[in-house]
């Protein structure tokens, strides 16, 4: 930059120098012009004065009046002596004397062209003076003219004052006066005629050292505009040149330093306003890269407005990102549905509690809560309602524990934004582990009963029904309790033990259970069954048992109730009440139902082929009933096996239809229209009203065995059974009595007009083979094709 500026000065200096010289030259020419004008003017005035004085002299007037040319010539010739010699003011060349009409009367003999009148000098001036008339004839006229090749100055003055009688022309040589310009300018000059002839040159004119001189020239012109004399002048510019060079060096030095200052200042400003702030931003980015927590740190930056805007955006972005990171971190620990801590957070806190309680030698409890029947809510009312219900449970838990004195009641409502810190209060925590599974940590436990009380509180709280979008929903829950340090010293063990206690509670259908080593066995069994059920269905470990139903009026067996059994390879035969729950928990109900239906119908077909006609009655679980695909699937099986619809009878419990009566009804109607027989199982144990019962498209009802078993001892039961039979018949339904264990009961039922009997007295549930054998031996074998059941009777 500095060098560049100096180079610029150096280069531009040449131009400047040329300009300076040119300007100097113009100044020189200007001076020459001025001096020439002044000199000619002065000469004109002097010539005029000389001429006026000559014409005014008595002698001249005398001889002029006499008109003698020779006399006049003598007078004017005398003037040469007078002026040329004595005063060096002008160099006379010629006098001409005219009459008042400009006729030449005489001329001086001293002049160069004195002999030849035709060679008269500056005749053009005479031509100018002659035509004048009036007062202007008195005016003095002058002119610079050329005669031969030389310049002359001529002036004409009137003779005779106010009343002119003639004219006197004086001619002088201007070169004599113009030479004096060298003194006035103090420079050597050279005068040349326009044709080039040298007429004067200063003594100190020196062409050799021309480079130190500046040449100026000027052309003196005649009054008529012709070239008269060329002036050359030499100006010594040594001093000027030196001054110029010194000035150049100074300017270069100044430009260099100015550029240096500018460059340094620019660097300083750039450093201060841009580079430094950018470095700080970069450093902050590196720090943030190493540690995200530094995101929220703001960088104070000074600089130009662009950099400040960048820094401010950087800070805003940092703050926003830091907030988002915090939020995401919180979200990783919080269950979004309920706002409760999630499993991850629960584990963290549990570990913390373990360490803390070990140090402080304190007890604490973990309570695992699992809702019963939550799946039904989800399946029947939709996940949306299920979600609302779960979040409601979260609040219920807070409420219940508040009553227990641990948590503030509306804690979840009170906090605007849940964070990890505000979800733990006095080390207590309520968490949702997933699905319908919740966990509670009760810190600083004094005795076991405290945990039990808490569990009771929870159960009580869950007991109340909730209204969600117009649906009144209530579910029960089971709580499993494990205590530190009694039941485990690490998180995994504690949670497992609480889980075992939970299943124990579920098994015995109680509200809660505190862990007991006895449960281990059971729970282990339960867990393995849970794992194995899926394979059991696919690997054919399930089998069907059939219990015959005696048609009392026909006195023969024309239908069987199908009962599923699990032939476990290690544990032997397992009854459905031990694995149906598991099927529900594992979502295997639909597969199981499908298998049972298919197997039962195939068996029916086999029997049919052997000439045995037994309607198969399959129990439909609550979940299976709400499966919208059920009718379609049954239709598929029937047509596959080419069976009539009345080969199948479906048994459902009263309660099963109560969860979503509309949906149940629509499915049942659908099945009924297909021609499938329907029966109400365990009739008398539910709460269904008669009017409701009337709406169900069923063909028969099965009176619960509890009534039948007691019939022989209790008159009341007999009355109930009697009334039920009458009622059913009035509604056009057939009646099946279960739990028939002796002959007298069968006889009573027969007397009461009951249609079917089922129970150990007739036969226990048996395999297909056993049943076939039994049928061969029994008296109740149908000789005739069985009476067409219910449909016709009903119609």
């Amino acid at each position: 930059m500095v060098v560049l500026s100096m180079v610029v000065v150096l280069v531009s200096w040449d131009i400047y120098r040329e300009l300076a010289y040119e300007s100097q030259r113009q100044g020189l020419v200007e001076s020459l012009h001025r001096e020439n004008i002044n000199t000619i003017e002065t000469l004109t005035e002097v010539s005029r004065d000389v001429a006026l004085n000559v014409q005014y002299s008595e002698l001249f007037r005398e001889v002029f009046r006499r008109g003698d040319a020779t006399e006049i010539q003598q007078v004017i010739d005398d003037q040469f002596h007078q002026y040329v010699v004595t005063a060096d003011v002008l160099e006379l060349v010629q006098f001409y004397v005219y009459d008042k009409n400009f006729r030449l009367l005489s001329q001086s003999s001293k002049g160069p062209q004195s002999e030849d009148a035709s060679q008269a000098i500056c005749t053009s001036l005479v031509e100018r003076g002659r035509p004048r008339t009036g007062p202007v004839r008195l005016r003095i006229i002058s002119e610079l003219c050329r005669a031969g090749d030389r310049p002359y100055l001529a002036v004409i003055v009137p003779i005779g004052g106010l009343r002119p009688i003639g004219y006197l022309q004086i001619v002088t040589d201007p070169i004599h006066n113009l030479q004096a310009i060298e003194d006035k300018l103090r420079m050597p000059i050279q005068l040349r005629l326009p044709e080039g002839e040298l007429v004067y040159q200063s003594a100190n004119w020196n062409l050799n050292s021309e480079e130190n001189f500046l040449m100026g020239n000027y052309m003196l012109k005649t009054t008529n505009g012709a070239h008269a004399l060329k002036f050359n002048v030499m100006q010594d510019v040594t001093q000027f040149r030196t001054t110029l060079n010194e000035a150049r060096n100074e300017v270069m030095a100044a430009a260099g330093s100015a550029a240096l200052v500018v460059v340094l200042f620019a660097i300083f400003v750039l450093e201060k306003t841009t580079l430094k702030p950018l470095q700080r931003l970069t450093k902050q980015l590196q720090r943030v890269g190493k540690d995200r927590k530094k995101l929220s740190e703001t960088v104070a930056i000074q600089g130009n407005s662009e950099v400040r805007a960048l820094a401010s955006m950087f800070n805003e972005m940092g703050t926003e990102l830091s907030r988002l990171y915090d939020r995401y971190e919180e979200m990783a620990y919080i269950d979004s549905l309920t706002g409760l801590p999630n499993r991850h957070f629960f584990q963290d806190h549990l570990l913390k509690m373990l360490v803390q309680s070990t140090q402080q030698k304190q007890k604490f409890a973990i309570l695992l809560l699992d809702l019963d029947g939550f799946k039904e809510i989800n399946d029947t009312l939709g996940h949306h309602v299920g979600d609302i219900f779960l979040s409601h449970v979260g609040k219920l838990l807070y409420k219940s524990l508040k009553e227990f004195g641990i948590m503030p009641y509306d804690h979840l409502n009170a906090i605007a934004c849940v964070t990890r810190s505000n979800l733990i209060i006095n080390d207590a925590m309520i968490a949702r582990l997933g699905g319908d599974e919740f966990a509670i940590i009760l810190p600083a436990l004094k005795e076991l009963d405290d945990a039990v009380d808490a569990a009771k509180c929870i159960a009580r709280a869950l007991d109340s029904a909730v209204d969600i979008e117009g649906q009144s929903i209530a579910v029960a829950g089971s709580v499993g309790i494990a205590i530190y340090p009694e039941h485990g010293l690490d998180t995994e063990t504690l949670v497992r033990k609480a889980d075992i206690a939970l299943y124990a509670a579920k098994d015995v259908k109680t509200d809660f259970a505190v862990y007991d080593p006895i449960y281990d066995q059971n729970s282990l069994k339960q867990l393995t069954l849970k794992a194995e059920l899926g394979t059991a269905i696919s690997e054919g470990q399930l089998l069907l048992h059939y219990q015959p139903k005696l048609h009392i009026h026909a006195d023969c067996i024309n239908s069987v109730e199908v009962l599923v059994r699990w032939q476990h390879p290690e544990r032997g035969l397992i009854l459905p009440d031990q694995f149906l729950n598991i099927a529900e928990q594992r979502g295997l109900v639909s597969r199981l139902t499908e298998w049972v239906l298919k197997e039962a119908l195939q068996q029916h077909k086999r029997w049919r082929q052997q000439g045995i006609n037994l309607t198969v009655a399959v129990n439909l679980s609550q979940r299976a009933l709400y499966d919208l695909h059920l009718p379609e699937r049954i239709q598929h099986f029937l047509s596959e096996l080419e069976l009539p619809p009345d080969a199948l009878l479906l048994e459902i419990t009263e309660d099963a239809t109560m969860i979503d009566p509309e949906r149940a009804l629509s499915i049942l109607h659908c099945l009924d229209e297909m021609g499938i027989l329907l029966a109400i199982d365990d009739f008398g144990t539910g709460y269904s009203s008669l009017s409701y019962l009337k709406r169900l498209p069923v063909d028969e009802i099965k009176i619960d065995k509890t009534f039948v078993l007691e019939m022989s001892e209790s008159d009341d039961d007999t009355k109930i059974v009697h009334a039920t039979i009458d009622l059913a018949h009035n509604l056009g339904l057939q009646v099946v009595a279960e739990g028939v264990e002796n002959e007298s009961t069968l006889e009573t039922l027969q007397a009461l007009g009951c249609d079917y009997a089922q129970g150990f007295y007739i036969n226990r549930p048996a395999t297909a083979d056993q049943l076939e054998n039994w049928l061969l031996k029994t008296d109740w074998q149908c000789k005739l094709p069985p009476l067409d059941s219910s449909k016709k009777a009903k119609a």
Partner: protein
Amino acid sequence: MKILLYWIQRYILAMCSLMLLPLTLPAAELELPNVIPGTTTVSAEELIKLAGKIESLLLIDARLSVDHTQGAIEGSISLPDTMTSCNALGKFTTDEHHPILFYCNGPKCERSANAVQIARECGYQNVYWFRGGLEEWKKKNYPFIRR
């Protein structure tokens, strides 16, 4: 600080000059009137014509005699206004109708005007006044005499 003082001074000076300007204007208006009642104002050309017409025209240079020697119209008589009186004029002519022309340096020169006034008071009837004077004369390149 010095620069400030300098500019304040300049400002004050400029203000003062502006205020003084109206006072100086009348001073510049020293030119004489174009016409003096009872006399004829003439130009250089009219003077020449007059001289051509009237042989006996009395041409009086009203300036001091020393000025007269430095350059005067040929044929004029030097009679400074300070010396002008009826008596002095009477030496040249007593004829009240004799044409007399007065001039001096120029329009700003009061001498000729004074002399004209005196000539009028003395009763001269044909008084001419060359108001432009020698200034106009020389400017128009008319001849004059130095002694």
